[in-house]
């Protein structure tokens, strides 16, 4: 079931929280939803999950509109809200039974689904406890379990791994990836590495506007433009090497690196490639080239560039 967000806008009073955002998530795709605090991520999630309607625009889930047909849409969505609100006074099993019933899971399937989710989310040892007695990580697992209890076509997760221990994070990521093969998953996170590791595609919003939409590789490429190399050249005088590097036609900028006296950062001109020239330079001067690594820009930097000026 695909999710189509079609130019939605939403204001709170005079403040525009979401401003004309459109994107599309296909079935079998995991999309990471990124943005700085207050960018409108949660508002967008709330509109997709039919918590509140958009002021303008529309969202369709499998062709059904959240504005005109919310009840039908809600049946196909599993939602884990940001703060993971739960009924603290209920026992885990009772709560999951409630979630299954209200999602319309057939009566004879409820038991099976509950125990399935307890298994998947690692709640077995705690299943008879009240939710309020659990640690934050276990509560997070209960939140995930209730979101997936009816085997939804669309899964919307706001910070799914917050509060989990590293082992559990790996398990939950794997679980999300497994679900994402057949289902549609939209996931909000502040941990960029997690988004990069889990998601097929990344959507970045900032100040209520969509600023980027693509795979992590394409985003990096788009923001990068110029090739940057880290090179280490030994057996020569620092300044001589520096000047020689600057003499290469395709090189725009050379910098000393502070950590190694013999290391340099070489930035090529737009569209140019200097790796062969650097190697040739070393051979000609009889210097030893001990390291040459292309510097990949981190997703963090891409994210900063895209969101800092809005």
């Amino acid at each position: 079931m695909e999710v189509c967000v079609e130019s939605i806008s939403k204001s709170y009073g005079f403040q525009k929280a979401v401003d004309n955002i459109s994107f599309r998530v296909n079935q079998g795709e995991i999309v990471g939803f990124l943005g700085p605090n207050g960018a409108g991520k949660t508002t967008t999630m709330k509109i997709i999950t039919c918590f509140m309607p958009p002021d303008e625009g529309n969202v369709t889930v499998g062709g059904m509109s959240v504005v005109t047909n919310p009840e039908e849409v809600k049946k196909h969505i599993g939602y884990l809200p940001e703060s993971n609100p739960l009924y603290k006074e209920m026992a885990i099993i009772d709560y999951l039974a409630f979630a299954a019933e209200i999602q319309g899971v057939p009566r004879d399937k409820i038991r099976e689904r509950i125990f399935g989710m307890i298994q998947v989310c690692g709640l077995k040892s705690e299943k008879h406890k009240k939710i309020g007695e659990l640690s934050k990580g276990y509560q997070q697992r209960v939140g995930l379990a209730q979101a997936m209890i009816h085997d939804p076509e669309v899964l919307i997760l706001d910070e799914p791994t917050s509060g989990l221990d590293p082992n559990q994070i790996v398990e939950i990521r794997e679980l999300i990836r497994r679900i994402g093969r057949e289902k549609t998953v939209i996931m909000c996170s502040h941990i960029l590495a997690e988004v990069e590791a889990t998601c097929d595609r990344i959507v970045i919003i900032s100040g209520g506007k969509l600023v980027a939409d693509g795979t992590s590789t394409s985003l990096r490429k788009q923001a990068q433009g110029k090739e940057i190399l880290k090179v280490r050249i030994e057996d020569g005088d620092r300044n001589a090497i520096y000047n020689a590097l600057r003499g290469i036609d395709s090189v725009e900028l050379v910098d000393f690196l502070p950590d190694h006296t013999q290391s340099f950062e070489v930035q090529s001109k737009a569209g140019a490639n200097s790796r062969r020239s650097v190697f040739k330079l070393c051979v000609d001067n009889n210097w030893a080239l001990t390291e040459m690594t292309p510097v990949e820009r981190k997703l963090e930097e891409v994210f900063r560039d895209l969101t800092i000026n809005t």
Partner: protein
Amino acid sequence: MNKIWIITKRELRSFFNSLMAYVMIVLFLGFSGFFTWIFGNDIFLVNQASLQSFFGIAFWSLFFFIPAVTMGLLADERKSGTIELLVTKPVSDWQIVIGKFLAAFLLICITLALTFPYYISVAGIGKIDHGAVWMGYLGLLFMSACYISIGLFASSITGNQIVAFLIALFIGIFFQLVFGLIGSGSLGLFGGLMNYLSIGTHFESMARGVIDSKDVIFFLSIIFLGLTGTELALSKRNLFN
């Protein structure tokens, strides 16, 4: 219908899990029992086989207890954020409102059912007007339903249970007392209107064993208004205060 019952069931269970229900039942039985049998204008003083004195006490104790039952129904969900999860489940706002209303109403039904021993005891003492007793209970149920819908509305407009409790009492006191007082002090159309708005007027006529469509329409309108207000407040979705 099924969805409403699922919500009602959960809400009732949480009443009993959180001791709310037990406190409510014990306090109500203790309070009404004390004044019905032991102290003040009690049955032995009146020296009649009737439950009039019980109905008079229940009329006031329910007025105070019901806001305590309803105050958390929506305010608490709002505060903890669970309302977000609830409204994103495949249920309509009306189903949520009615489910919660029914839960509080069933709790009151259970509480009132536990006072049947009073009825049985009094019936054993002398000749009792059975019709008046049943009408009295029906009146209490109607009146409770009114205050539940008012309390639910109060609970829907704030995230603070205490504030919800006070708002419910504030709205309730008009129907319980103020309209009646103004009505008895005024004449003509205005006086009649005030008297009609007083829950006491309608309850007393029912407790005497008289039922009139005017009374039923009055109770149903208050319930309808309260629930509609709740639904409106819930559908606004500004649930973060």
